[in-house]
């Protein structure tokens, strides 16, 4: 990244996993403060950062809840806040909404878009959901089935700010048709092996 070789995980790359990885013994607020605490940031800075993300992520009123008491969508919002609280240069998301129901997933996509439109931080988002990929991305990279190589690199020229109505526009459908073809070919190959 930026010419440096990456050998191990670090706080300059925020990461959100598909599985729920909030620390169950910490409250929402303490989870968000975890990275700052690990780097020895002063307590009032930790609190201030946590408070601002709790606000942005719509977690107000749940600061002192434990992860177990939250819905899946709230847990993933907290996980994104926890990653962003470190102010990383890049956000890595590995199917973060994969375990959520369709409606919640749609709302989470809009939330993530609005964060990106505000901060313009590089986000690498891995997904199997073509619609999700087009809606969120400016650039879609299609990976081939084993071995995983880059198969296609598609620019998504939909204008920002985007909203959910865009998912039914003709331009969107066209992109979706094209990516569906690319991916179907890979899926057929993968299933044949």
């Amino acid at each position, binding site marked *: 990244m930026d010419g440096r070789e990456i050998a*191990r*995980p*670090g*706080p300059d*790359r*925020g*990461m959100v*996993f598909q*599985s729920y*990885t909030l*620390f*169950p*013994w*910490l409250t929402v607020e303490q989870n968000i403060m*975890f*990275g700052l*605490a*690990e*780097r020895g940031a002063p307590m009032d800075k930790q609190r201030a950062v946590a408070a601002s993300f709790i606000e942005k992520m719509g977690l107000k009123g749940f600061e002192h*809840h*434990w992860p*177990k*008491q939250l819905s899946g969508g709230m847990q993933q919002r907290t996980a994104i806040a*926890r*990653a962003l609280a*470190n102010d990383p240069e890049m956000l890595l998301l590995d199917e973060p909404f994969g375990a959520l129901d369709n409606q919640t997933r749609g709302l989470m996509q809009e939330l993530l878009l609005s964060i990106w439109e505000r901060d313009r931080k590089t986000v690498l988002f891995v997904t199997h959901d073509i619609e999700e990929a087009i809606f969120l991305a400016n650039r879609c990279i299609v990976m081939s089935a084993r071995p995983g190589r880059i198969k296609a690199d598609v620019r998504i020229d939909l204008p920002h700010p985007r909203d959910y109505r865009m998912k039914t526009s003709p331009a969107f459908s066209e992109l979706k048709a094209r990516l569906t073809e690319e991916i179907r070919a890979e899926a057929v190959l993968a299933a044949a092996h």
Partner: protein
Amino acid sequence: MFRPLEPVSPPARIALGVGFFVLFLAVWAFATLGGYVSRTFLADPLTMVANGWELMTKFNFAYDIGLTIWRVVGGFILAALVGVPIGIAMGAWKPVEAMLEPFVSFARYLPASAFIPLLILWAGLGELQKLLVIFIGSFFQIVLMVAVAVGQTRRDLVEAAYTLGSTDGGVVRRVLIPANAPEIAEILRLVLGWAWTYVIVAELIGSSAGIGHMIIDSQARLETGQIIFGIIVIGIIGLVSDFLFKAINRKLFPWRFA
């Protein structure tokens, strides 16, 4: 009622739990007071209570109870203070585990009671010997169980901590230990129960006071009522300490029960 895994209501739970104690007492009373079992071998509940009262009022049995509790708690705390950190180290660092695990697995099967003659030679008949019996009995169990618990920490939580900038030491301090603290407390609760067996065995041999000593003393005089009273006292203390342990865990780890 007969559907598997169907929960019971709290009042029904208490009624059933108390009911079985009552049933147990009833069978015991029927067998002894009804004359089906010889009094020489098994005292009836009334004699047991009378003997117990006599022990408490005339023979200062409370002192023996206190002494036994102190021995268990003392030996157990020593074992926990040394065993828990070693167990955490074994769970966290695989080379430490590779070095210690075979030996601890071996030592775990050495019966603590078999060490008593040796410990009497080394430490005499004093309190140190009693504490050491309990220490040997609890220590290896604690080490091994804590190591297993820490070793099974969810890997994804550890990875999440690294992506948030944790150092190796930070992962141990802020993930491995808090994640397993409730498990460790549960292990200690279990091992404390076992420690009670060791203390009584230690007191049966070469002891001048304590619940175990009273039991072996009563055997010589065929006072089965006193023996049973002693055993029941141990049971009650176990029940109370278990209850306390659970209450403390609930207080310390609210996130587990939320």
